[in-house]
């Protein structure tokens, strides 16, 4: 009698081990798929061009060749592209968070006529194809330049205004989820103590929502850093961002893959570093908007 249950337990145990091993295997496959392109980027950046074009499968560079990391700076003004991206994406983030947190707060805390319509408006902005509004915005900017003498095209403020607006709906959605998690009782107490509504917002709510605001800011920064369509029309000459600049490694005579991958590696480092540092806030910020606890 005693042997039967233990045998039974052993077999479920073995089954659990098998399932566990299978799950680890699948996770391993997913991680391979995830990281393989990143590996290829770094590996290619360390190859010479002749090695890249050699036949057959050879993933790792035969000798570590750091020449690409030296040459890429000389070929184009990468530092300039990168600085432009930082200025554009950084300012966009600040403006978007300021405007977005005000709206998100109203949306989280107050009932007002037209609230549902505002929600739908935010949702509908996400469906507008960029090519539809690009020409009208271009005409708008040209008109402003002509009538008011304010340069708009190929200026920092011109592209920053576009990006700030593009990212505001997403920021409102994320921040609203964050504000929802902060108990309204705190503001009520502050109001009783004599704070105005606005003071309650910036003295009580905003400090508490800082992790969510930081996470939202990271997303806004990434969106602004990666935009291509509007950048190609509105940010050339002195304000060319990295997303447009890196395309210049594609020349009429071919693509300089090894140098391009070196540039891609260098550009990934700051973004991945920020992400690594704020991972926890980013993950909870991303999910706060959609998952009600």
């Amino acid at each position, binding site marked *: 009698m005693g042997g039967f249950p233990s045998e039974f337990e052993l077999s479920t145990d073995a089954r659990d081990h098998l399932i566990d091993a299978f799950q*680890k295997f699948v996770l391993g496959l997913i991680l391979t798929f*995830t990281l393989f392109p990143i590996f290829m980027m770094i590996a*290619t950046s360390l190859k010479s061009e002749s090695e890249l074009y050699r036949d057959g499968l050879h993933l790792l560079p035969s000798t570590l060749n750091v020449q690409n990391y030296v040459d890429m700076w000389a070929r184009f003004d990468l530092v300039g592209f990168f600085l432009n991206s930082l200025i554009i994406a950084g300012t966009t983030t600040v403006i978007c968070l300021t405007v977005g947190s005000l709206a998100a707060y109203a949306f989280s805390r107050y009932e007002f006529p037209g609230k549902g319509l505002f929600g739908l408006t935010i949702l509908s902005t996400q469906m507008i*194809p960029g*090519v539809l509004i690009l*020409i*009208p915005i271009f005409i708008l900017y040209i008109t402003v330049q002509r009538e008011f003498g304010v340069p708009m095209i190929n200026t920092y403020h011109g592209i920053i205004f576009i990006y700030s607006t593009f990212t505001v709906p*997403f920021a409102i959605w994320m921040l609203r989820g964050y504000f929802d998690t902060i108990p309204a009782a705190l503001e009520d107490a502050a109001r009783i103590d004599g704070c105005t509504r606005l003071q309650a917002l910036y003295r009580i709510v905003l400090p508490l929502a800082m992790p969510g605001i930081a996470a939202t800011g990271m997303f806004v920064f990434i969106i602004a850093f990666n935009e291509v369509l509007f950048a190609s029309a509105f940010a050339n000459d002195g304000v060319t961002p990295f997303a447009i600049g890196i395309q210049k490694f594609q020349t009429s005579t071919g693509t300089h893959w090894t140098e391009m991958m070196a*540039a891609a590696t260098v550009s990934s480092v700051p973004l991945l570093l920020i992400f690594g540092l704020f991972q926890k806030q980013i*993950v909870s910020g991303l999910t706060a908007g959609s998952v009600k606890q």
Partner: protein
Amino acid sequence: MSASIEQFTQSLRERMTVPSLGLDDDSRFAYWLLLPSIAMMALIHFIPMVWGFVISFMEVNDSTFIDWMSAPISPLKQYGAIFQPDTAVGAEFWSSLVETFLFAFGTTIGVYVLGLTTALLLNKSFRGKFTARTLVLIPYFAPAVATIYIWRMMFTADTGVVNELLVWLGVINSTDEVFWLIGNNALISMIVVNIWKNFPFAAIMLYAGLQSIPEQLYEAASIDGASRWATFRYVTLPQLKPVTAVIILLMIVWSFINFTIPYLLLDKNPENGEVLMLFIYNFAFQNGDYSLGAALSIILLVISMVISYGYYRATMQSSVQGGAV
């Protein structure tokens, strides 16, 4: 110092007489907070959208666009051309539309299945879980332009690692290189890249969804003697429905209007698989026919809205209502 500023703003507020419009204080305060974002969206989203709608009924092109108001009005010229199979645009419109649908649905299914699998695997405790969760998110945070170019390099026919791997595995012969970025294969490549880029987003949303499922539900299922599959089918999946609704809606709409992936992956080559965004870009900017581009964009916008609305009605209204973008 700050006290005097507050006194000043207080007295300013008392002197300002804002018309009440029959609204209570809370509503008026809420409108003030919303004002900047509404103004920005009006300038950059909605006025240009209406403007684009108007342009789609005119003949605005390279030579007339600065003085667009005096461009000829021809109400149905663009839309007529799109729906007639014997015009340059009409001949390819339907195949491009089908391509766009395949791109959106292929991406959505792939992102959801891979995202859910990843979320379920991460939802257990094991050593290195935090590392695994961090690594999975990398595609979403690495600069998109850089990563799309990596894929483009990997898909290149003669030197790309995808073909080299396939030869090494014995799937293809070293002389029959597959052209991944041309024709029907281009669609597959675009879907793979889009899945790679976006599945971490789905994974992390679903992971948070899994974490928020009350433990009692699993205990109840276990007391009832439910199998692993039954627990998943009748406890986990229904609980994930709100998150699922948001992910699927976002993936479909984002794929529909995705420009960066097709543009950077396939370049402007018209022989490549053309989703509508690329198709529109070519007509509007390569050929300079802005009205035609606007008309095509309006059609794309209407399709996105119809799908979203239908989906919104069909699934959890409460989860999408109001805030979710």
